[in-house]
């Protein structure tokens, strides 16, 4: 398989998901993701990308197969992982700082450490100046920043992201992608990222998994051997275009089969 020969972070064996009425959402699939990888799930609607993410997070029950996250059942591995939704899902009655603090509070981290961590993260995502603002006062991009800070506050080893930048314009999205890689460089988490965008997938990933729809299954796996750190200039490099072209080809294949 194309998975890097590292220490496994996620192991899926014969994982399948059916709706209550019995229609299959995901055909049985095997997948291993190593620690430190940035894996992007790419595919048309209905290919089960989000479902796969929710299965790994233990948010929806499996129909068959097993999932191990760092050797554990997903529900027991929750302390290791954070989830970033497409929607920023900020609690409107909490300030920016209080929203970033949410995970720490729910996990009953002592107040002193909480405050320190929140301060650190607001600094990291550049939101210190609006720490006391309420979500409704923020732009879409700033809300997403808060959402990222909240996810990173609990020191996750695994970050699951479900189209987090889909609602942003392309320039903002590019900037967020660069920032995400910078944060990854610093914090060394493993990531699984869902997107519809080929460019985003190529820019971010160490590996791209293309899924085909009806029912969802793995169509192709493409390693992305571009060196890190990656910067904005990479997008105009010929090797980037070459990779994007082959990903697009594979994606077309996934839609027509």
């Amino acid at each position, binding site marked *: 398989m194309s998975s890097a020969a590292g220490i496994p972070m996620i192991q899926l064996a014969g994982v399948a998901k059916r709706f209550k009425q019995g229609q299959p959402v995901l055909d049985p699939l095997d997948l291993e993701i190593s620690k430190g990888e940035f894996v992007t799930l790419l595919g048309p609607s209905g290919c089960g990308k989000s479902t796969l993410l*929710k299965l790994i*997070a233990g*948010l929806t029950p499996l129909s068959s197969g097993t999932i191990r996250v760092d050797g554990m059942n997903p529900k027991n591995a*929750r*302390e290791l*992982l*954070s*989830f970033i*939704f497409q*929607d920023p*899902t900020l*609690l*409107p*009655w*909490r300030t920016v700082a209080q929203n970033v603090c*949410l*995970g720490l*509070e*729910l*996990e009953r981290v002592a107040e002193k450490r909480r405050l320190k961590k929140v301060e650190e993260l607001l600094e990291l995502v550049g939101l210190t100046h609006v720490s006391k603002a*309420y*979500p*409704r006062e923020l732009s879409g991009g700033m809300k997403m920043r808060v959402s990222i800070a909240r996810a990173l506050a*609990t020191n996750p080893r695994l970050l699951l992201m479900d189209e987090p930048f889909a609602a942003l314009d392309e320039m903002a999205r590019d900037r967020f992608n660069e920032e995400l890689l910078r944060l990854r460089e610093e914090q060394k988490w493993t990531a699984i990222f869902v997107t519809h965008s080929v460019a985003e997938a190529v820019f971010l990933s160490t590996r791209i998994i293309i899924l085909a729809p009806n029912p969802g299954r793995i169509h192709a796996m493409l390693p992305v051997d571009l060196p890190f750190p990656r910067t904005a200039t990479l997008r105009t490099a010929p090797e980037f275009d070459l990779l994007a072209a082959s990903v697009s080809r594979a994606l077309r294949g996934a839609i027509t089969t």
Partner: protein
Amino acid sequence: MKRWLIPAANAFAVFLALLALWQAVIWIFHVAPYMLPPPLAVGKALLARRSLLLNALTITAEEAAGGLLASVVAGTAIALFFAQSRWLRRMLFPYTLLLQTVPIIAIAPLILMWVGAGMSAVTLIAFIISLAPIIANVTQGLISVDENFVQLFLMHNASPAQVLFRLRLPHAVPSLFVGIRIASGLAVIGAITGELYAGSSRVGEGGLGYSILYASTQLQTDYLFALVAAATVLGFAFVFIVMFLEWYSLHRWHESARPLEAD
């Protein structure tokens, strides 16, 4: 000129016009004062009996406020219970509708029989009549939380209590205020209705409802009008206080409660 001054002046002009119309009707149709007292006579009665009136107003206000407060506490508690399962709601929700549909006039005598006449009986009636909108609105607020938020909480191993008190309850606060606004009007009506039956523990002294009944049997129509005015003001004051509390607790974050100066 301040922006609120013009609408306030307009509203006051309408008030004066209504008083003029009232006076005109009396002059034109020669209405007897015991049928419809002139506005000035009502004003005089208001002044002459102000201490008695204020006393009645205080009693009714206390009963209505007590009933409303109790319904907020009990209604929220019941809604928290209802939020636990769809099954519970299906089983018990129809009975909260019963609270809303039972004519309070019909059960007031029963309550008086059970509790005994007095302020506690009237408070109980105000409580019963204002309970249903609180339960209905808070329950709706508690269960209408977006699924993503629940999943976010679960991702951080939140306990059911944390989901309930840190997510569902704060999310339900705007709905709670919708409920309180409806209930505040009902509580005043409930208290006055209750007093019509409950009478008074001391002769000649009681809440607005009792005084209205007393004034009507004595044909003191001017005082009766003064009492009706007082009851209206009381209902208005309740709604106004609730609206202020709502603004105060929501204006920082909720879309419905923009800063006061905004529009």
